[in-house]
């Protein structure tokens, strides 16, 4: 590559936000070494500022037509919209982290690791080269493994959760990479655009190896996305992690990995999509059924949210599965569906984890029983928790309903109605456990004997400013996307996805 091509590459358009977040991460890392522990808050705010600047850069480059730089990074619709969502997620998580950091007394490393995880996620959505995608995936994963282990108050659960996450995540990356190595071997290419052109001949000449590669890639990404039957690490990692990190691995890494899965699977395997993508449909159905089924019997709040996020991953997988039968004209709708539901899911999950953090920290509630009397003692907090739970269940007037409804419509349009029916049936099933929690909140607490009873703290739960802002923003996002979904759907309909 000559110097001239490097100079003419539109690096700022494609990599601007990534560069800004990366630089912030390095600055924060160095500052953390020198500043005293008391300035912890300042460091997190600096990190949040970096994310905001990256957002400004992204908005600024949005008007520029899509560019491809160095045959590796791209600024197409999917990259821009997912980057936007990822930066918003990063900002919300950092704000939540401001309070979690104080109350959990987390080690200093936590804020720059959050930023490096964000860099990895941004690389996953902007890269169109398998090498760069893999580096992004691992940067996100390795930072998350460390972040999960940083909870000081519950040291053992934290280290164990991180260990399980690392072992499963390590197997996942190895399996994914093994599949990718076959794709490279058959075509000699790692650029997704070149692979998309070779896709049909790949499928016609080497169908057997293509199927093996497809299954390996799906299993590898399935472990990262916590699809059933590869979801075993999810509840343990969520239970061990600090609340802000649990919110991070359930939203940021899911958004990035779904965007990556969409790109990789659709670009490489569109030649054989009709035969291959039904496997994904089956995986989605199993995930929805098992995720909701396992959540039914859970009493631990974190594990319940973990299984609920497994089930949500099943819903999110449906748009990808539909690529098997959709015509190219219908592809933009599927992109819309996936990104809209990811946005809604991000608001709902971060909001739920923010409330859960307050519950755990101020009332010492970890089990569902501890919620008794919550609605009476802190009505506003309980009301927002109820909105998030209803949103996750898919109640009308929340974004969750609109997202699920659009996915359902797509299943009808592309003729995979059975998947839509599974979506509907499992959503009904999910109302049982979400409503169970809501009912518990309105029950009056049992008479307590001594101080053995959990979560019977007197009075209202205090809400710190930053967490309050996070909850308010998530609440606004959930309700706004439920009442006037057009504010997001209309812009999404205008996006040139690929």
């Amino acid at each position, binding site marked *: 590559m000559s110097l001239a091509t490097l100079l003419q590459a539109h690096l700022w358009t494609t990599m601007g936000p990534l560069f800004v977040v990366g630089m912030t991460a390095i600055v924060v890392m160095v500052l953390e070494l020198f500043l005293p522990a008391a300035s912890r808050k300042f460091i997190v705010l600096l990190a949040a500022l970096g994310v905001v600047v990256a957002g400004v850069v992204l908005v600024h480059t949005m008007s520029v037509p899509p560019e491809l730089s160095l045959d590796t990074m791209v600024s197409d619709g999917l990259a821009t919209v997912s980057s936007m969502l990822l930066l918003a997620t990063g900002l919300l998580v950092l704000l939540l982290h401001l309070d979690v950091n104080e109350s959990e007394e987390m080690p200093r490393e936590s804020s720059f690791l959050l930023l490096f995880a964000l860099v990895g996620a941004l690389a996953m959505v902007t890269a169109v080269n398998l*090498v760069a995608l893999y580096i992004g995936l691992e940067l996100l994963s390795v930072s998350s493994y460390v972040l999960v282990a940083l909870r000081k108050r519950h040291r053992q659960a934290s*280290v*164990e959760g991180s260990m399980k996450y*690392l*072992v499963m995540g390590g197997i996942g990356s*190895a399996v994914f*990479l093994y599949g990718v190595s076959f794709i*490279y071997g*058959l075509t*000699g290419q790692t650029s997704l655009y070149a692979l998309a052109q070779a896709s049909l001949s790949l499928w016609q000449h080497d169908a057997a190896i293509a199927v093996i590669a497809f299954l390996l890639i799906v299993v590898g990404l399935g472990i990262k996305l916590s699809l059933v039957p590869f979801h075993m690490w999810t509840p343990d990692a969520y239970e061990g992690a600090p609340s802000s990190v649990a919110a991070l691995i359930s939203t940021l890494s899911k958004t990035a990995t779904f965007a990556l899965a969409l790109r990789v699977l659709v670009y490489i395997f569109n030649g054989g999509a009709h035969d291959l993508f039904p496997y994904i449909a089956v995986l989605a159905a199993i995930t929805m059924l098992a995720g909701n089924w396992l959540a039914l019997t859970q009493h631990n709040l974190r594990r319940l949210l973990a299984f609920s996020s497994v089930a949500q991953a099943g819903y999110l997988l449906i748009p990808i599965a539909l690529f098997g039968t959709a015509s190219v004209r219908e592809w933009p709708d599927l992109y819309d569906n996936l990104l809209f539901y990811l946005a809604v899911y991000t608001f709902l999950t971060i909001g739920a984890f923010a409330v859960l953090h307050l519950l755990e920290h101020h009332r010492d509630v970890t089990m569902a029983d501890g919620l008794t009397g919550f609605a009476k003692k802190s009505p506003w907090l309980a009301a927002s928790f109820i909105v998030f739970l209803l949103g996750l269940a898919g109640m009308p007037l929340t974004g969750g309903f609109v997202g699920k409804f659009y996915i359902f419509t797509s299943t009808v349009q592309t003729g995979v109605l059975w998947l839509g029916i599974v979506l509907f049936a499992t959503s009904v099933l999910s109302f049982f456990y979400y409503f169970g929690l809501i009912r518990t909140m309105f029950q009056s607490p049992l008479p307590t004997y001594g101080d053995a009873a959990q979560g019977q703290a007197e009075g209202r739960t205090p809400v710190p400013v930053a967490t309050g802002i996070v909850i308010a923003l998530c609440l606004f996002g959930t309700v706004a996307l439920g009442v006037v979904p057009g504010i997001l759907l209309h812009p999404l309909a205008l996006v040139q996805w690929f």
Partner: protein
Amino acid sequence: MIHMPVASLLALAAVLFCIGLYGALTKRNLIMVLVSIEMMLSAVNINLVTFSRLGAAPNLTGQVFALFSITVAAAEIAVGFALVLAFFRLRKSTEVKDADSQKK
């Protein structure tokens, strides 16, 4: 150059990958689990280097990819061993069965 058939190299990688996967899922010692994951990644590297020399369209990208994969694997295993150390300090053990403080 000695002629090496592609099939035997791929078979070596496949066998190594399967041993690694089996080990990662069944071994009782955390260190052995990490070693097994490392074996799976080595299998991937053998595959990449083989294809880069003897694949359908040989080029250098495969070797570059293998270099990246080696580096990333080293980082991942470093974090893994740090976690094993942290776990050992808490439980005085590196056995998988001792990682049982969370509810099943």
